[in-house]
C-alpha cells in the first residue's frame, strides 16, 4: 500500500432490517469493501437525523452514506419514504451550500443484497477519495 494514499473516513448508517443484514451478508460471502467504512446500526433509515450527518462531517468524516430498505419494503411500512424526502432536501441543501454532492448518498440495500452493499461501499469510497478531505464542513478543533 502507498504511504500517502488518502483513505477517506466514511460513516454508513444502516437500517437494522435490510441494509445492516445486507452488510452482514456481504461479510458472510466474504465480499470485500474498504475498512474505512464504519457502520452504525439504526432501527430504520428514518431514525437518521440530519444532525447526525452534520455531526459526522464535523468530526472529520469525509463521506456519509445512508442505507435503508428499498422503498415499499420498509419494515415499518413507511420509514424510508420519509428518509427519502428528508435526505433529498438535506443533500440538495448541502450541495447548495457548496458541499460536494458526491460526499453524501442514500442507497437502498435489501437483506439479500450483500453484493450490492459491497459494490456500493467500494464505489462510494472511491468517489469520496477522489474528492479528498472534507474541509468545507469540518470542525477543525476536532482534528488533533
Amino acid at each position: 500500500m502507498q504511504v500517502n494514499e488518502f483513505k477517506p473516513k466514511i460513516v454508513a448508517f444502516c437500517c437494522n432490517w435490510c441494509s445492516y443484514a445486507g452488510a452482514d451478508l456481504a461479510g458472510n460471502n466474504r465480499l470485500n469493501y474498504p475498512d474505512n467504512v464504519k457502520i452504525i446500526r439504526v432501527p430504520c433509515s428514518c431514525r437518521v437525523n440530519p444532525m447526525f450527518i452534520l455531526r459526522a462531517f464535523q468530526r472529520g468524516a469525509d463521506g456519509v452514506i445512508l442505507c435503508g430498505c428499498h422503498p415499499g419494503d420498509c419494515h415499518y411500512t413507511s420509514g424510508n419514504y420519509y428518509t427519502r424526502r428528508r435526505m433529498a432536501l438535506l443533500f440538495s441543501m448541502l450541495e447548495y451550500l457548496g458541499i460536494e454532492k458526491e460526499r453524501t448518498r442514500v442507497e437502498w440495500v435489501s437483506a439479500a443484497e450483500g453484493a450490492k452493499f459491497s459494490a456500493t461501499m467500494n464505489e462510494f469510497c472511491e468517489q469520496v477519495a477522489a474528492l479528498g478531505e472534507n474541509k468545507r464542513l469540518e470542525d477543525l478543533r476536532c482534528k488533533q
Partner: protein
Amino acid sequence: MQRIGVFVCWCGSNIAATVDVKAVAEALKSEPGVVFSTDYQYMCSQAGQDLIKEAIKEHKLTGLVICSCSPRMHENTFRKVAADSGINPYMVEIANIREQCSWVHKDKAIGTEKAIILARAAVAKVHLNTPLTPGESEVTKRALVIGGGIAGIQTALDIADAGYKVDIVETKPTIGGKMAQLDKTFPTLDCAACILTPKMVEVAQNENVRIFSYSEVTEVGGFVGNFTVKIKKKARYVKEDVCTGCGLCTEKCPMKKVPNDFNLGMNNKGAIYIPFAQAVPKVATIDPNYCNMLKNGKCGLCAKVCTAGAIDYTQKDEIIEEKYGAIVAATGYNPISLDKFDEFAYNQSKDVITSLEFERLTNAAGPTNGVLLRPSDLKHPKTIVFVQCVGSRCSADASKGKEYCSKICCMYTAKHAMLTRDKYPDTDVYVFYIDVRTPGKNFDEFYRRAVEEYGVHYIKGMVGKVIPEGDKLIVQGSDLLDNKQLKIEADLVVLAAAIEPDKSARNLATMLTASMDTNDFFTEAHPKLRPVESPTAGIFLSGTCQGPKDIPETVSQAGAAASKVIGLLAKDKLKGNPCVAHSDELMCNGCSSCERVCPYKAITYVDKEFRMPDRTTKVRRVAFVNEAVCQGCGACTVACPSGAMDLKGFKSKQIMAEVDAICK
C-alpha cells in the same frame, strides 16, 4: 460513571485470523470507563458465557461490550447473560467485528485497527445506555390465513385443531386452490380430489374456522399479536347463507358463453356458476361482467328459479374488520404467461397446451370428462410431446422466463406421460428434458417406471420450435445423445410452464411489511433455521408463496407454519421491544409532526398542566407515546422539531457518541 467490561471473541479463527483479538482487548483497556477487557475463543459458548458472568461479579460491571459476530446472531444470547447476572439486558452493546470486519478484510493490521474503532464506538454508546424494560401487549387469539389452497387449508386445520380460532381468506369463490384442479398426484397416483375434498369439507365444518371466500385482504395494520385486518367480501350477488348449492340457477342461466376459468377457459360456464361440484362453500356466484341482469337490468331468470330466494342483485362489496394475533401467507402460484415463447406456438394452436390444462383434460370433472381429447378437433391424440423447462432455468438476461427451477415439472410430466401410456397404450409419448430432477421419496423410482414399464420416450434435448402444419404439430428439437435434430409429427404438445408466485403476493407483502426476493417469493426469516417465518414478526409462510414446492412439502410446511402460529397464540402476553419512542413533555410543542409520521398510530395528545417559572400554570398539548403500539422505527424523532422525541436504545446522543468515536 459506568463500569464497562469488554469481551473480544475469537470465533475460533473466524475473527482471530484477521483481527488480533488480544491487541483489541488490550487497546480497549485504556478507554475511559472500561474496567475489564479480555478475549476468548467462543464467547457464545457456555464457558464464554460463564467467563462474562464471572467478570460481571468480580469487577462489578454495569455495562458490557461484546466484540463478536453480528448482533443479529447473538445479541439476545449476551443480553440474557447480562440479565442472568443482574444487569439490565439493554446495557449490552455488540461490536460487529466478524461480518463487518474480519470477514471483509484480509489484512490483519487493518482488521485489528477497525475492530478497535468499532469496539470504541460500542463503548461510547454503552456509556449512555440506560436500563430498559420491555412493555407487554395482549395477544389476540385468532389467526388469519391468506389463501385457501392446500397450504392454507392445512395450516388452518392444524391451528384450529389446537383450539384457536382461524379465518381463511380466499379470492376465488371456493377454497381448494390449484390442487382442486389436478387429476392424480405423484408419485402415488392417488386422486387429488379424493384426498383434498374431504379436507375442504373438514375445514368448512370445523367450528374454529371461518372461511371468507371470494374475499380479499385490503388493509393490514398493527403488529405481532395485534394485527387489524380489513377484508373485502366481494359481492357475489347470492346470499351465501341462503343458497343451498342446488345448481338449478347455473343450468337455467341463458348466458352460456362465459369462459370457465376453473377449466382454464377450455370450456364455458354460465354467468351464475358454482366452480365445481365439490366447491366449498357450495354456493353460486354471479360474474358481473357477463350477467345481463347486472349489466342491463334484463333477465333475472336465476332469481325466478331459485326456490331458496338466495339471489340478490343489489348486493354490495362488504368490508369486514377483524383482529388477529398472527397472519399466514399462503397465496400460492400460477403458471407463467407463455406470450413471450412464440417458438412453442402456444398462442397459435389450440393443441399446444400447458401441463395444468392437460390436468383438466384428463380430469373426470374436466371439459372432456376425463377422456383425453385434443382441444382443436376433440380427436384422440396419437403422438404427444411433452416439453420440460418452458420458462424455468432461464438466465436473468434472457428477458423471458424465470431463473429458478420450478421443481414440480419433472415429476408431473412423468406422471402425465405414464398415465397417458397407461390409459391409451396406442399413443406415442415423448418427453424432451434437459435434466430429470427427482430428489424425493419414491420419485426416481416413479420416473424410471415411466420409462421402463410404460415405454415413455425420454429425449435429452430441448424443443427449438413447434410448427403447426395441417392438423399436425411439427415438433423440432434436438436429441443431444444421438446428436440428431428430430422432427416429430405430434397431435398434442404439452408445455411444462414455469410457475411463479401469485400476482397478489406483491401487494400483500407490502401490506404485511414482509420482504420478498426478486422473484416475488416471500423471504423466510432464516433460509435454514426459520423457513416458515417471515422476518416480520407475526407473519408466517405456507406453501408455494415461499418457493416452488410439491404437495407433500407444502403440507409439511403448512403444518410447520401452524405450529409456529400456535406457539405464538399460546402466549397470553408478548414482551414488546423496549426500544420505543419517548417524548419529553417539557419540551414537546404539541405540533403533531410526530403523530403524522407514525405508521402505527402510537402517538396521541393529552392536555397537560405545567407550572411556569412565575408560579402560574399553563395547559399545553403534549405528545404521548403508547409503548405497546410503538415499534421503535424512530420516524417521529426526526420529524420532531424541538427534539422532544427520542428513541430509547437509539437516543440521539448515543448515535452521536458512536459517530464521534468512529470519526475520532
